[in-house]
């Protein structure tokens, strides 16, 4: 693999292949689901009018939003993971280690208990605020400790703290509300709409533009803070900007899709093997692979069992935990 990586211009072919895979994934994933829809039906809907109103509704109101949200959510999570790993120089860093998921969970829990059934549309907003609250606490503690390297460890501690508060509230609360929150925390693309696609896309685009602007500074961090500072990088400021960006994009995704863990951990590891470790190829590769991955995981989630849909977070966590162990095994072997 490493030998292959040295071939000049290879990355262009990899990106071309990934782009084709992305187009293929989007168009094919729409055909999967309980209602039988073929590629020809989709083509007909795109070029003229759908054959039946049912096709029109299923394709444009259910499957297209779902596939597109899956794509951008996967892109966002994978990019956030890649940046977080490079910025902290920690290959096991994951956006969820900021306590984002438990913060979102706490926000959702409180919203479920406080808001009425009609006001439940505000649940994603509450989850977003919870996630942001968690990130602010993590940043605050890391700043107090005067050590940004402790950020991830602080994230783990805050995650447990907020998780325990959520569990306590749920334990005392209404069982229906508990069910709703737990299902939401497992992650799902069932209820997504085109509006969510626009919102998450906007966050992903902002993230990508910022990363493209700062790619040299991020690369400089790979050789250590001291070396980066000697190249004119304001290390602390750069780290805060990037961590805040990762937190914002992840919180937006969690707010609408629930807890989809391990995408941010796994995808950058795979992409590094394909295109190298520097920021530009890593981010573009992570966005494409992450997007395709989540699209196909969602296909699996809605078609693996005929009677019920599997929450997407269960599948990503199952794959991710095995991947996590594999990384540790590999590190042990090479270390």
């Amino acid at each position: 693999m490493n030998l292959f990586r040295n071939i000049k211009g290879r990355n262009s072919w990899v990106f071309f292949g990934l782009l084709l895979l992305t187009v293929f994934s989007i168009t094919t994933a729409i055909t999967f689901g309980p209602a039988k829809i073929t590629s020809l039906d989709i083509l007909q809907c795109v070029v003229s009018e759908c054959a039946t109103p049912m096709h029109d509704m299923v394709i444009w109101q259910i499957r297209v939003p779902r596939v597109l949200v899956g794509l951008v959510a996967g892109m966002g999570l994978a990019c956030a993971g890649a940046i977080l790993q490079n910025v902290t120089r920690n290959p096991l860093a994951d956006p969820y280690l900021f306590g984002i998921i438990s913060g979102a969970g706490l926000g959702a829990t409180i919203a479920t208990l406080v808001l009425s059934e009609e006001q439940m549309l505000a649940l994603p907003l509450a989850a977003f605020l919870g996630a942001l609250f968690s990130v602010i606490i993590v940043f605050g503690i890391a700043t107090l400790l005067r050590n940004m390297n402790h950020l991830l460890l602080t994230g783990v501690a805050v995650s447990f703290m907020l998780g325990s508060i959520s569990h306590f509230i749920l334990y005392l609360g209404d069982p229906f509300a508990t069910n709703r929150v737990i299902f939401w925390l497992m992650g799902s693309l069932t209820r997504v709409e085109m509006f969510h696609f626009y919102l998450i896309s906007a966050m992903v685009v902002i993230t990508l533009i910022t990363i493209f602007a700062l790619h040299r500074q991020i690369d400089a961090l790979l050789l250590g803070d001291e070396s980066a500072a000697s190249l004119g990088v304001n290390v602390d400021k750069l780290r805060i900007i990037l961590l805040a960006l990762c937190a914002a994009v992840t919180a937006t995704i969690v707010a609408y899709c629930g807890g989809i863990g391990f995408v941010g951990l796994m995808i950058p590891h795979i992409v590094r093997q394909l295109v190298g470790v520097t920021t530009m190829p890593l981010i573009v590769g992570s966005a494409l692979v992450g997007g395709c991955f989540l699209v196909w995981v969602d296909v699996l989630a809605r078609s693996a069992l005929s009677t019920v849909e599997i929450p997407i977070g269960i599948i990503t966590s199952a794959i991710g935990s095995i991947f996590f162990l594999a990384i540790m095994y590999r590190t042990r072997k090479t270390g």
Partner: protein
Amino acid sequence: MSNLLTLDAVSWTIEKQAILSNISFNVAQGDILGIIGPNGAGKTSLLKCLLNQTKNWQGGIKLKNKSISHYKPHELAQTFALVVQKSPPIFELKVYDVVRMGLLPYKALFARDTDIDKKEIMLALEKVGLATSENKFFNTLSGGEQQRVLIAKALVQKAKILVLDEPTNHLDIFYQHQILQLVKALNITVIMTIHDLNLAAQYCTRLVLLNKGRLVSDNTVDKALNPETLSKVFGLPCFRDNVQQHSDSTVAETPRVHFYPNSNTDSPLPSGKSS
């Protein structure tokens, strides 16, 4: 020669503990300045102040008669290039990627590499003798090769002053000389902290001796390697002799110092040794 850099009463105190006290000296264009002293003398701390990487120091550091605090970070990066490698990178960086980092102080946001940049990177690698190694992984190189890659990065950075923090640490004798010969051959101003006094004597034009955060001496190599002073600073009896150093057509005498852990006798030499 004109002074490129002037340090005027530089002090640094952390939690009431003086790390550096009242350090003053000048660095002239073309100097190869060695900062020597025992562990904890403040050598690396002084480099941090020079590079403006800490905010709490007092005193004045002027670069071309202008305070370094008035320079923007990228302007300082165009003047100082730091060669330091405390721990290996976690991820598999290629040699090319490391050297490419030297372009950073000259690049705007979003800027991509030009063909000229690529040629510059390859030229720098050629200068340090690693012309065909651009696709190798940095972590797989020997310590000496890694130092050469970092020097190539400094060349791409087009810095006027090369700053090296313990460049010969963990290197065998061959690589120690190879790196210092390379640094000398670059013909630019160099400031380096170095533990090995005899290597410092061989390659530096001036030596600054620090002890407990204070400046003990700032002198030519010959005067700086005073056995009495070194004996006090390092806490060991010190003896000095000279060795003849042959270069292309000249023969020069270089001072050499020896320390012996025998402080109970009047003689600085252990029994059986003679000068």
